[in-house]
């Protein structure tokens, strides 16, 4: 657990899908506690080297001061990142299949969150593209999700952030934004799609016991417990076998 000013408790959990190694996880997490910036990304499995793209994106975003949200700053930011990634690939002598796949580039979904103080109030601002999700709970009861609000909205083919510069503008037009004020007792979850879908389904079905267990495990930063928890959900078909990324921020 990491303590930061302004009363945020931060918990994180990242795990690959069953059958994959940690080094193969295409979800990525980054945050900077002092700057109160948090990012989760989910690299597209079908694309080339999406793990690198997702990791590069979240790590670079949390380093930028102040955090970029507006298109005029965000566009050059992702353009430079994409160029950097493609430069890295171009330095290698690739086999024919990698060469072919590189031409399609990488893709990632993301959700970004920034807290800031204005006056005496803690505010938050978020951006998202694709099916990574921000879930804002107040006293663990009221629940708002962004940009996806219902479990059945997962599973389609969302617009993702491409690494190829010429494809980025169109994707960036689809980035969604949200903002609000935070209070002590608020709880923010940044999650990739599998967890987001499972969590919202639990809420829709009024099944609170499992989410309470999830809350307890994240609060205690029990990585083994969470591993087993998601393992059980997978084996009972309650969650899709996919990479898992969770960043939980408790406001106190």
């Amino acid at each position, binding site marked *: 657990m990491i303590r930061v000013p302004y009363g945020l408790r931060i918990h994180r959990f990242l795990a690959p*899908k069953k*059958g994959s190694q940690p080094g193969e996880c295409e979800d990525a997490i980054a945050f900077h506690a002092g700057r109160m910036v948090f990012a989760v990304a989910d690299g597209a499995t079908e694309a080339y080297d999406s*793990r690198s793209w997702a990791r590069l994106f979240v790590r670079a975003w949390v380093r930028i001061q102040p955090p970029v949200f507006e298109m005029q700053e965000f566009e050059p930011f992702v353009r430079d990142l994409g160029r950097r990634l493609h430069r890295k690939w171009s330095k290698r002598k*690739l086999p024919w299949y*990698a060469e*072919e796949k590189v031409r399609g580039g990488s893709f990632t979904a993301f959700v970004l969150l920034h807290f800031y103080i204005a006056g005496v109030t803690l505010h938050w601002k978020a951006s998202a593209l694709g099916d990574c999700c921000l879930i804002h709970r107040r006293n663990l009861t009221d629940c708002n999700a962004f940009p996806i609000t219902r479990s059945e909205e997962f599973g389609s083919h969302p617009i993702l952030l491409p690494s190829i510069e010429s494809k980025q503008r169109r994707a960036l037009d689809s980035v969604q934004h949200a903002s609000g004020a935070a209070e002590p007792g608020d709880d923010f979850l940044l999650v990739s799609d599998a967890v987001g879908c499972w969590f919202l389904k639990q809420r829709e079905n009024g099944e609170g016991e499992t989410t309470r267990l999830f809350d307890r495990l994240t609060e205690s930063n029990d990585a083994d417990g969470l591993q087993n928890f998601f393992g059980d959900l997978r084996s009972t078909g309650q969650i899709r076998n996919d990479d898992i990324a969770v960043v939980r921020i408790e406001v106190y």
Partner: protein
Amino acid sequence: MPYVAEISRTNPTCFIILLDQSGSMADGFGGSEGLRKSDFVADIVNKTLHDLVIRCTKAEEIRNYYHISIIGYGGSVQSAFAGALGGKTLVPISEVADNPARLETRTKKVPDGAGSLVEHQVRFPIWIDAGASGGTPMCAALSQAKVQLEQWLSEHNDGFPPTVLHLTDGESTDGDPTALGKELLSLGTTDGSILLFNCHVSSHRAAKVEYPSGDSGLPDQFAKTLFGISSVLPESFRKAAEQTGVNVSEGGRGFVFNGDPASVVQFFEIGTRPANLR
């Protein structure tokens, strides 16, 4: 519910492509004098293998989600792989990727991001060459597929069931394939029976039938025979068909009769799209 197993490195699936390489495959195709059926089909199979490899490419690594066999039948019945894979069967996709018989240079048009297409020189792998000789020993080919399937299934009993994609331009010359086809269809994994899809191609302009759910509209007994040994398309394959612009009704079978070049392209696209890659 069948056909839902995840396809992963620990739980791969398998594709067997059965290719008619009889003498009549040297005839023209699609109304073009210069285009032989055998050349067109070989090109599509190479493109299909290319796409399967690309699908399994992560970074520079190929994940072995698939095992591949290609059985050519005509003057003989044998593995149609050329080059280093010659004679091999049930080859892991990473080995397929690293061992094309040769790499050709082709021109590909790709979007330039500004609404136009630009030409790129790309390396295109060739694994099989066109073949056209002898008769149509379909039963012998199905027998060989069965042997391979039984071997593969003994080691992969819980995976997504194997898919057999069979392409022919004529009737069997070594007997009625019905019994062997049924034997193949009786094999499977805990996730469902194997999938046998049949595509008949014709050099003549004849009304084509694609993915029918019944045999009443089929023109002759040969068509009905192939229909009878074709699997119903599972839902994920029907969705893949929709994406290629083909509407398949529920109960529609993986069967094409009197197919033209476009049918062949779609047949291989649809037949190699099982979902649940992990």
